């Protein structure tokens, strides 16, 4: 795959990922031309386009157009399914995704895309594995980030020790499962004690 673009019905770019080195000027030109061409197409028309020497595969989901550029010998239908799989992933992550989710959390959308497609090739086709990877990264960051603050405000030293224990184990490569535990557990503890967590 050469690049992927997400844009709205108004032609506003929402996401862009380039897998081939191009100058900014070229990127802009390609984006402008493609957005125009794709938006001009009628709904009943074919999802594929021949554009320059590339094939464009696009699909509309609600108000968003997903648009991929592939080489001529690539399989168009499977590209269409790549788009669909990406939408499924977004949907699962955000919980019935809408355009606003992508507008305001575009960096998250990028993270998901990077776990799914890498360097223009499909990296992981299992939905579960992609989301697991994203959640692990999300969670570990949250805990790491707020750990000092927790220790300042936490009242029960027992929990702190527990947290330490978990964190230490987490760095010992089993972080996935255990960090989920500590995160949930700390949240739960806070709720019990009536304090608000300030992440």
């Amino acid at each position, binding site marked *: 795959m050469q690049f992927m673009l997400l844009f709205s019905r108004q032609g506003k*770019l*929402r996401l*862009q*990922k380039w897998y081939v*080195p191009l*100058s900014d000027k070229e990127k*802009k030109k390609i984006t402008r031309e493609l957005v125009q061409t794709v938006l001009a197409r009628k709904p*009943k*028309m*074919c999802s*594929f*386009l*021949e*554009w*320059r020497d590339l094939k464009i595969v696009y699909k509309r989901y609600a108000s968003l157009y997903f648009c991929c550029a592939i080489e001529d010998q690539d*399989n168009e*239908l*499977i590209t*269409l399914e790549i788009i669909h799989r990406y939408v499924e992933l977004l949907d699962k*992550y*955000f*919980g019935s995704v809408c355009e*606003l*989710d992508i*507008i*305001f*959390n*575009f*960096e*998250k959308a*990028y*993270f998901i895309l*990077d776990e799914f497609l*890498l*360097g223009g*090739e499909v*990296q*992981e*086709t*299992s939905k579960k*594995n992609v*989301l697991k990877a*994203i959640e*692990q*990264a*999300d969670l570990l*960051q*949250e805990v*790491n980030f707020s750990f000092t603050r927790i220790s300042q405000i936490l009242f029960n030293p*027992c*929990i702190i*020790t*527990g947290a330490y224990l978990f964190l230490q184990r987490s*760095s010992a*490569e089993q972080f996935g499962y255990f960090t*989920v*535990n500590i995160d*949930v*557990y700390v949240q*739960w503890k806070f709720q019990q004690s009536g304090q608000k967590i300030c992440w």
Partner: protein
Amino acid sequence: MSDVVERTLSALPGLLGQQDPGAGPGGGPGRVSATSRLGGLIRSITALSSKHEEEKLIQQEQTNLKATVSAPTTTLRLMKECMVRLIYCEMLGYESSFGYIHAIKLAQQGNLLEKRVGYLAVSLFLHENHELLLLLVNTVVKDLQSTNLVEVCMALTVVSQIFPREMIPAVLPLIEDKLQHSKEIIRRKAVQALYKFYLIAPNQVQHIHDKFRKALCDRDVGVMAASLHIYLQMIKKNASGYKDLTESFVSILKQVVGGKLPIDFNYHSVPAPWLQIQLLRILGLLGKDDPRTSELMYDVLDESLRRAEINHNITYAILFECVQTIYTICPKSDLLEKAAKCIGKFVLSPKINLKYLGLKALTYVIQQDPNLALQHQMTIIECLDHPDPIIKRETLELLYRITNGQNVTVIVQKMLDYLRQSKEEYTIINLTGKIAELVEKYPFLLLKWFIQTMNAVFSVGGDVMHPDIPNNFLRLLAEGFDDEKEDEELRLYAVQSYLSLLEEEDTFYPQKFLQVMSWVLGEYSYLINDGDPEVIITRLHRLLKQTFVTSETKAWIMTAVTKMSSRMSCSKTIDKLIQEFSTSLDTCMRQYAFELKHLCENKELMKNLFPLDASCDEIMVDASLSFLDGFVAEGLSCGAAPYKPHHQRQEEKLSQEKALNFEPYGLSFTSNMSSSGFTGRQSPAGLSLGSDMSGNSAELGQKETNCLKLDGVRKLWGKEGYLPKKENKTGKEDKTQPVPQDSILTAHVVDPPLMQSEQQVVSLSEEEKEKQQLASTLFVGLGSNSTISLVGDFYKLQVTKFTKYETQNSEEASSFQNIATLPFSPLPDTTPNNKENFQGNEHLGLRKISLSSSEVLEASVSFETSQSVTEVGLDEQLSNCRLSTSSLFADSNIEVFQPPQNVPDIVANKAPLSLCLPEELAGHPHSEIVELCSSDILTVYWCKVWTDDCSRLVLFVANNSTSPLKTVNLVNLNIFYTSVNFFLSFCQKCVQLEKVCTEGVLSGSISYHLDTDTHLEFSLTFSLSDFIRPMKMTTEDFGRLWLSFSNDVKQNLKMSPSQGSLSVALNALKQKLKLHIVEIIGNEGIAACRLLPSVPCLLHCRTHARTLALWFRSSCSALPDSLLYQCQKVMEEA
């Protein structure tokens, strides 16, 4: 303590269930951070109404951001926020390069959360050639060594997306280690990173091929799937190297199709479709032209076809890939049948996407099975009028493939209609090229149609179309076909149509079209008997005054006027024209006017200069410029310095001055090389022509073709003069055969299926009838059981097309005959049937050789690559197909020698042969003469000879039998003998490297006829070292060159104890790679070599504690890499 743990664990399931799905562990941070600054920015931008306001707002935002990011007090957390906003600004199209460096800093310094955003920003902002990327390398190395998995993952992700090519050695060992990591996600990403490296620098990962195999056998499906990306690429490059893996791929596919994978990998209840498609593609590449490998995969392909049943896009995707694979590998009839049925499913589907793919598949298979098009002809006709232009376009592509002599007019008409509607440049270029190709293939059909279609192409295609199109058209027109009368009619019609086009005032025509018109008018306007040349000149004159005409076109027009004026006694318009432009502000025009004026004063000279209808005549070029001898002698006698060629002057200058040489070093070598070759001859020719015609640009094109002709025949201009043309029947037949069209080319006979369809027409409506009619015109001549009756004409056409080659070839052939018969003149009495008849011949036409992917190494046809390629393009109608053939090893100067030892009697031929090289080659280093392939009749031996200017492949063909062999044909090497009844013969070819790569396979086959046709296939491997020659230079020169080269590669190699010192290692390299050792001082040494013909490469090496640090520099970017690989191999062997 422990009860805390226990409580936590027991409470977990319930807790997880309580979570709000929207704000789940991952979704928690999701849902619009409404209060954040990014949210504010986004909201205020959406609220704006005009682009101008947006610009203002972004500018303000950027100023704020700039201040924030460069302030030292900014916390990393704030920085992270700023980065996200910067990404947003970039997405809107506002460049924010000031933030790039901060993105890198964030990736370096931040904690996980910030690092992640930093890496993301870097991957979005920078591209792989960006200089700032170098600053990231250290961070990546650090993170790769981290114990935190998330950090390692992030580093691997960024490496797989963008990484500077020259820094790969810095991270490569780390990533290799990760291939053994216990976590599958890390292994997968490491494989993906190696895939990226393979794409940008294949030679650097060549040594880890074993590890790729391990990845292929990984227990995790993801890792295995990732390794397939690498295998697909490698197999694309060299399928023959991976045939042994076919069974593994087949068994993997079997498992996938059989549903043995974890259910996670299912997509809409289809098991791992991505994996399946990847595997199918790999199998297709492996099975291509290889019956034995294909055999292995028939079962699994059948299984895949059978399993893909559900009516979902994803199954169609797999089916499509299956069909493609089935048609790519060696065919098996029942699979083909099933695949054809599948294509039918696509084509007939109401879903437009599937229909499109059906057409695409049809286009792909149509050449193998034209009957399929007949089955679906009605659908194709419908698609031709489809409202979606993409469908239309694909249908035209399909029709283009099935064109023959009868349907060409209809198809071209359809293409023209489409062309007129399309506005996109790329489509226009593509379509005009195709139309022109078709039209030129069948110009004999209808003269008027030919001219009119080309007119349409020129006026629509305008100035964007490929420059070859007008050139080819003019060449066809000038060379004509065999029938003089028809040619004249054609030219006359062209002249008339252009005149009528020019009649209308103020119509705009593209420049190219005007140039074509003016050339034709200038050359052939004399054909109009009744017309007044004055009228034509007036029209041209009017054009000259138009503002839209560019100065290049004006030059063409002026040439036309000049040519015409040579045929007229005097003309008022010309006088007026001369007067007008003698005072023109445009210096070129003024010069033309003055030339014309002077020429008009000397009509005799002018008639000589512009003979009638002589555009195809060879222009004799005195390459030695002997007519200047007197002038030179005079100059010398007056004390002028004798002439030194450019490179000699440069060398002298180099040795005198100690200044830096700013000229690219390779240049001087090129001129050196070609002094006897192409440019050497061309430049004086250009000079002499130039002085006669003063850079007449209309003649330039012509001149070019003349040069081209000269190139092929240069050896034939001896003292005897021009050797007479000779008809070469066998050659011609051979040429017509390979053209695929003639197998489906038919005439007046309509094949049976079509007859049936026509009988059905009766009951159909008018509209249907029309469509049927269209169908019958379009699909006429397809199908296998039709007879060929147009072959005569077609044959004629082929001959015309190759006229030029014909002359060359026959001349070459006759010269070969000269050589061949010489040593044999005393023989006829003793062995009467030993009379040799050599006919070297360019094996023209469309050979399907280049389809086989085994040819990685590209070789060029003659000395100068770029020129030869354009020549080929100009020379041949079939340039598209031909260009692909240029990837073959070929040489226009085939030399066939008659070795002295073939005189001995035939009885001795069973004894072991004493093969030896001809004298002129024996002095050069060469490899051992080894048997290449053999049958009971014929044995082929080969050997490589490394001469100074090229690598030659010498093939010995020995006849083991006593009976004479007829028509021995070396297919890929462009040589063929009409008879090899002699005992031993050999031929040599110059093999050249067009693209730098480490290894290439040259495959070919030899076929001969003795009762039956027999083929012997063989393949030879050429490595880069075959094309490397030592380059002598001094240490000073080395230093100078070293600084002027920009492409370098460094690598440390381990030395085995046996290799000991530097000089031993260097000597090994010298022997194996033919390097020239410039100097060795202590533990440092320098060496130089050149890649043929003259691309220099310098090597600096240093030993340090059992490691050999190699540092290559060259003017060619790919060369150091490949050389390094060769060195690695040499060192390993040693």
